[in-house]
């Protein structure tokens, strides 16, 4: 008998099968995931989800007998008081009583439930979205370098010595120049020693002595390791793309912003955050909320504490500018910003906000998204808010700024996709999606 411990075998043996399964069910999963995102908290979604998809295309058909009709005999255990000839009413479910006739693989249900890991979920959730102009800016703006292996060189510092290469060269050189092997020398020495002891065959002895001398001389002339053999690992500096990003969340918290509007804004911010974390190794978030004055706050305060006051949007932009100057140099950081507001602004500030946007904020940013949130049932068709009008002049085609309106939860994701879809329309100024 052999006992083999297989516990340390590589894990995820069925990973390939799972990928095939996900690929197969892609359309259904995509739909389920999108639907799930409509009415669930995004933080929950990111923790991996149980999704349930219709069985279409996932059935494994086979020739089976139908569940109904025909003549069947069942043998059942546990008779109590039936006697031969008793009539039994047929159970409602049809021919299921026999047990053996029930659904062959237990998949009678229409839906198929399973768990998606966080990674898989986000893969599908954010599939075919792309950050705008990411590559171009990265290279242009990158200032740091990292070293990457780039072959071998004949010079270098000792700690970069490549032993394998060096020894390989040494070996081939020794073979080519016929450097005597230590064993060969030892053999001759042993024989000399033997003959010296016994005193036989003096001619042979002198022959051997000559031979030994020749071997030793050759060993000295052909060194074991020659400077010629030595190789060093070579490294080359390569520009390192900026792999960190900072995301600014700007939100109006003045009295006119309802809980519903804040919820919409929060969802949008979360989506953007998830999306950025997948593209960058490190993502910082800065929360700036404003009334008639702006302040950098932590997440809880940002979403949950209430504040009263007027609405001056440009204060938030000024605050953002200050934080950028203080901590996030545009050379090292990819800067993203998302602003959520109900569109109210002090009339006198609109011009100033637009100006700041144009001159200061947009040049700093990789992307600036403005989300105008509205009350769920308010009919606001036909009327553009002050801020919307002001920003509209700034957001020009092909620029880094995009603006959208959102009124209900289910619009969040479509709007988000619309903003980041790979084949994004070049004029991101449309009204309601």
């Amino acid at each position, binding site marked *: 008998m052999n006992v083999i*411990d297989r516990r340390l075998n590589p894990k995820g043996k069925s990973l390939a099968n799972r990928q095939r399964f996900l690929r197969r069910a892609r359309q259904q999963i995509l739909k389920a995931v999108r639907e799930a995102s409509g009415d669930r908290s995004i933080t929950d979604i990111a923790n991996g989800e149980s999704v349930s998809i219709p069985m279409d295309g996932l059935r494994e058909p086979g020739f089976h007998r139908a569940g109904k009709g025909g003549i069947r005999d069942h043998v059942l*255990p546990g008779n109590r008081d039936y006697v031969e000839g008793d*009539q039994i009413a*047929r159970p409602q479910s049809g021919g299921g009583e026999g047990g053996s006739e029930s659904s062959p693989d237990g998949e009678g249900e229409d839906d198929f439930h399973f768990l998606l890991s966080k990674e898989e979920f986000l893969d599908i959730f954010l599939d075919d979205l792309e950050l705008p102009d990411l590559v171009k800016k990265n290279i242009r703006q990158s200032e740091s370098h990292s070293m990457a292996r780039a072959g071998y060189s004949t010079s270098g510092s000792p700690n970069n010595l490549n032993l394998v290469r060096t020894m390989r060269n040494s070996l081939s050189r020794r073979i080519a120049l016929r450097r005597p092997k230590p064993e060969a020398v030892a053999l001759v020495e042993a024989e000399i020693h033997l003959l010296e002891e016994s005193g036989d065959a003096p001619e042979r002895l002198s022959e051997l002595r000559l031979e030994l001398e020749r071997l030793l001389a050759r060993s000295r002339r052909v060194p074991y390791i020659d400077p010629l053999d030595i190789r060093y690992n070579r490294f080359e500096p390569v520009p390192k793309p900026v792999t960190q990003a900072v995301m600014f969340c700007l939100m109006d918290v003045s009295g006119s912003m309802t809980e519903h509007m804040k919820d919409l804004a929060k969802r949008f911010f979360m989506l953007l955050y998830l999306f950025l974390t997948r593209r960058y190794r490190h993502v910082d978030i800065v929360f700036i909320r404003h009334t008639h004055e702006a302040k950098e706050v932590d997440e809880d305060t940002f979403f949950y504490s209430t504040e009263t006051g007027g609405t001056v949007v440009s204060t938030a932009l000024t605050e953002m500018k200050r934080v950028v100057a203080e901590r996030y140099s545009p050379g090292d950081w990819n800067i993203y910003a998302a602003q959520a507001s109900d569109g109210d602004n002090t009339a006198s500030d609109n011009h100033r906000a637009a100006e700041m946007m144009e001159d200061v904020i947009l040049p700093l940013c990789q992307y600036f998204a403005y989300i105008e949130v509205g009350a769920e049932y308010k009919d606001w068709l036909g009327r553009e808010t002050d801020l919307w009008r002001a920003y509209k002049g700034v957001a020009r085609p092909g620029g880094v700024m995009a603006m959208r309106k959102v009124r209900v939860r289910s619009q969040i994701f479509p709007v988000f996709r619309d903003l980041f879809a790979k084949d994004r329309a070049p004029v991101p100024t449309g009204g309601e999606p």
Partner: protein
Amino acid sequence: MTTDLLFSGADWDFGRLRRTYDAIEEIAKGEIGLDTYPNQIEVITSEQMLDAYSSIGLPLMYKHWSFGKRFAQDEVLYRKGMRGLAYEIVINSSPCISYIMEENSMAMQTLVLAHAAFGHNHFFKNNGLFRQWTDARGILDYMEFAKDYITHAEERHGHQAVEQVVDAAHALMNHGIHRYPRKRDYDLSEELRREKERVAWHEQNYNDLWRTVPKHEATTQGSKELAERKQRLNLPEENILYFLEKNAPKLQLWQREILRIVRNISQYFYPQKQTKVMNEGCATMVHYHIVNRLHEKGLISDGALMEILHSHTNVVFQPEFDDPRFSGHNPYALGFAMMGDIKRICVEPTDEDRAWFPDIAGNADPWGTLRQSWADYRDESFVLQFLSPALIRKMKLFKVHNDADQPTMVVSAIHNERGYREVRKALARGYDVSQMDPDIQIVDVDLAGDRRLILSHRVTNGILLDEAESILVLRHIANLWGYEVRLIEIDAETERTLREFEDVAPTVTLG
């Protein structure tokens, strides 16, 4: 006495496993007389157990989305705690591989070793069906080949192309089995002997009267042309996968090979389908005897025995028909009960047993009798032969006749003198493979004309095929065949056509 214990406490380690194995082996070989393949015990984690589940219990399996689907399903059930995992999986191979889980306590490992490494192992090695149909020594090598082949096919022809073929083949898996023994090579002396016997028989039974009986004019099988065609294609053919592999006009070589792989795997599992009750009954019987003997010999503690018996009783629990948990006969329960009953008949038979089982009643060799039955029977014949009136009474078996044309079902036999044979026959019928899979055959193909393939389902007891599913399968057949396919359902008794499916045309071009 405590010093004799093989282990104490729940933890297991490799030393204890080995000691316990040796103690079990002594009982298994010495007292029960089991004859097993060499054992290989592999310890795995629960995640690996889930992996093994999804690849239908084989350690090597090619990649396919359906296994991923099964894994996802099992995983949800397992993580939600709706279903526990099996304690072991055992593979019919030589050496016989038993997977045991690391989470099991030492008592459970003892049970598992006795159950799988000896019970199942003995059954695999000795049962006639397994000996005839499976090659225990070759299966792992074959699976290795199959896995590599399909991986290479995917690399060369793309995932999707391979998937289409495998999907189609899986749909026909149950119809890719040769149900009859393959032809053996002819033995000249044997042939001569048989020839002589036949002549002798003919001479003995010669009766001149037969000469005067008028002969049939022609065959009733239709035209001569049809008969010839059928002969050439070996029709009718019930092994649909085999037929397609050999005769589908458009398939490429690699596609035929994939059909063959699926067919071979299906063939490998064919005996397991027919011996669920016996296989599990044998393993349960063996572990039950072994753990009790271990306890009697003072090798395991009372606590360990209680733990083992607790899970033993869970396994052999048979809910009654009106219990919400009822879902058919539990093969463990039925097998264990029948084998226990055989033991009883051998050792202390009643008059009834002597009347029903004259050749084994009171022969005082229960293990010999059981070994014989494990070797020579499958579920259907085993039930038909050994289900005793005593057990029918004990399980209170009764038979319900369910005719869809009648307003109610009728209890047609119960556990009494008049009913024993009928109950036994009906139960055995339920385990008959020809009853499990519908009888579907390829009956004709018009090679010179439109190349339409015609299949027939011989309907027994008026039970038709599930329509929606059958159309999906027909589509797979059409894709493999490359031309239209038609399915006709014919009543086996009256030869009346009950239903004709519309012709299904191929939807994708393979090959």
